[in-house]
């Protein structure tokens, strides 16, 4: 689409008899079937990507929803501004970031993307454009749209609050944790003193090394932090600094043996402790963006992400889940663990205070049993699985994980009674 008029046309087409609905799609970076609508219409938002307004003093940017975070990073940095939240890839649109309410390494202190949206325009199934704000009269629709996976309508424009930065660099501390207890203890002690924090953990180590990890945490670099050669162009965006975090992914298919070797290598490669290393933001935040076809490494049936969060109190369940994954024989290489902070009012928003963990497993027999076992653990602890990464939850499990689903459905029934907006994810889980 290139103009809002195209959305109206698509809505008309999708409302004809025997049609299978409409879905907005950004860059398709959700892992599962959230951005697919088999047999139906899909609206490609990526050409609708202009920056409409920038307020450098108030640090606000207004964009068309197809604008992506890579484009915006490059646009904002020269003004000393940056996005409030960035996920593990910059190849994500603003619409997709709102619809999945994405989180980044700063969730524990800054919350998720939707918390920084000041205003958005949403076209609903009747062709009306609603201007929504977090606290306004339409706040219910706002918070159904944040995390709503495209089911409330098409986000057309959004105004996002940015943060001021002095440089395009991060000052990073790296440390190793010898096991899961050490890891959780380190993160519990002083995580809030860092603006950004994430841990990569070894998902194959068992026994005493269970949950051993490399923790990288940092804060935005000030001018004083930069060595002279970088200080000349402090806001230049590039991935120039030597990269420690860029994974040397195993060549060829990932299996238990290459996976084990890879996990071992990554753990050993990290320094036991290193303080105050200056890294370019691209290197720090999106190491995978530098690796071209990383998703090809997983063999013909591809791979399946599983990301969940459980409340801090459920630390025993969390530990058990790590044990189950490590003992399963299913090899995961991209394993991320993080503390999440408070939730926002998004009805289907994923982040909630607690421990989150993401693994990435090649599809092979038995994987469904592993995931079902993890679902049970997560449910028993009152946790949930991230929809933007899901491709196998059932309707029943999802509704137990997202207690506000009924509320969400009620809003959807009001703004889209005929169910025009639909995705394969929504079909599968009866959103």
């Amino acid at each position, binding site marked *: 689409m290139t103009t809002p008029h195209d959305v109206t046309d698509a809505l008309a087409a999708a409302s004809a008899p*025997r049609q*299978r609905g409409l879905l907005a799609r950004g860059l398709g970076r959700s892992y*599962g*079937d959230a951005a697919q*609508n*088999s*047999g*139906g219409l899909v609206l490609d938002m990526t050409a609708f990507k202009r920056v409409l307004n920038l307020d450098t003093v108030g640090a606000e940017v207004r964009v068309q929803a197809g604008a992506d975070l890579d484009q915006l990073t490059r646009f904002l940095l020269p003004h000393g501004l940056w996005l409030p939240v960035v996920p593990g890839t910059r190849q994500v649109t603003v619409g997709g970031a709102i619809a999945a309410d994405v989180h980044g390494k700063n969730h524990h202190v800054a919350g998720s993307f939707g918390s920084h949206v000041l205003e958005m325009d949403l076209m609903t199934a009747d062709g009306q454009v609603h201007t929504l704000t977090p606290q306004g009269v339409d706040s219910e629709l706002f918070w159904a749209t944040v995390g709503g996976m495209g089911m409330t309508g098409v986000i057309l424009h959004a105004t996002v609050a940015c943060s001021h930065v002095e440089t395009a660099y991060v000052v990073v501390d790296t440390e190793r944790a010898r096991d899961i207890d050490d890891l959780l203890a380190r993160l519990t002690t002083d995580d809030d003193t860092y603006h950004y924090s994430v841990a990569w953990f070894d998902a194959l180590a068992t026994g005493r090394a269970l949950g051993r990890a490399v923790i990288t945490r940092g804060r935005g670099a000030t001018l004083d932090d930069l060595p002279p050669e970088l200080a000349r162009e402090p806001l230049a965006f590039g991935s120039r600094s030597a990269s420690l975090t860029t994974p040397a992914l195993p060549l060829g298919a990932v299996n238990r043996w290459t996976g084990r070797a890879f996990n071992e290598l990554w753990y050993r490669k990290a320094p036991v402790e290193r303080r105050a290393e200056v890294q370019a933001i691209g290197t720090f935040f999106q190491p995978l963006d530098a690796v071209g076809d990383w998703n090809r490494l997983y063999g*013909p*049936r*591809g791979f*399946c992400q599983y990301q969940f969060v459980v409340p801090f109190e459920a630390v025993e369940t969390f530990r058990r889940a790590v044990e189950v994954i490590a003992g399963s024989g299913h090899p995961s290489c991209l394993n991320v663990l993080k503390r999440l902070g408070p939730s926002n009012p998004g009805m289907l928003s994923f982040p909630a205070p607690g421990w989150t963990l993401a693994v990435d497993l090649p*599809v092979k*027999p038995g*994987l*469904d049993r592993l*995931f079902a076992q993890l679902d049970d653990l997560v449910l028993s602890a009152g946790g949930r699985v991230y929809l933007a990464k899901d*491709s*196998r939850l*059932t309707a*029943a499990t999802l509704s137990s994980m997202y207690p506000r689903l009924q509320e969400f459905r009620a809003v959807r029934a009001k703004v889209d009674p005929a169910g025009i907006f639909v995705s*394969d994810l929504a*079909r*599968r889980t009866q959103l």
Partner: protein
Amino acid sequence: MIDALGNPQSLLLLGGTSDIALAIAHAYAGRANGLRVVVAARPGPRRDDAVQDLQRAGCVVRAVDLDARLPSSQTAAVDAAAAEGDIDVAVLAYGVLGDNEQAWHDVETGAELAEVNFVGPVTAGIVLADRIRRQGHGVVVALSSVAAERPRRSNFVYGSTKAGFDAFYTGLGEALREHGGHVLVVRPGFVHSKMTQGLKAAPLATTPDRVAAAVVAAVDARKEQVWVPPAMRLVMSTLRHLPRPVFRRLPL
């Protein structure tokens, strides 16, 4: 939808009382909770048993009437299944073996084989294809037979109907590719089922459960053809290439 791990949410069994179809449903029921199954079959105690059996396995089951010899009945069965949601996997299972001697002497018997094993499946395939094109996804498991590969004196009437069936579904798979559809043509050898009850088992005889396991694995891998047992592939390939005078003398 079939999820990323290959678990469907709904099955349509055309010939829902077939032992092989039921074994396939059980194999999927073991993987997916609350699987929706539509059992399309002639009404009667066999269908009632099939429904109960799948309910016990945790499926949500619905029975619809199907007479393979009536084209309108194929349409009605597919429509009834589609009314409940997307059809993720359809299994084309009905079929008759018949008595070969009677079938090539008696018009009525021969015609029944042709209608049940070929005409019916073609009409069902057309209706399913329309549904799959609209859904943008969907898998058809078509139960052909090794008998389709080379006509034998002892069962050429059945073999000829299955040859037509096999060719149709192989081609349908090609046609549905661009629409997101997928067809798996299954070629079992001798399977111990009610179809073969009382017959002397052939070498490499197998069971409905083994056929089901092979089907599920082949759908997971998005294969287009599978032989059960796998060794049948080589056996048939050899038999296909034997000169006729030699083939004729084999005790097949």
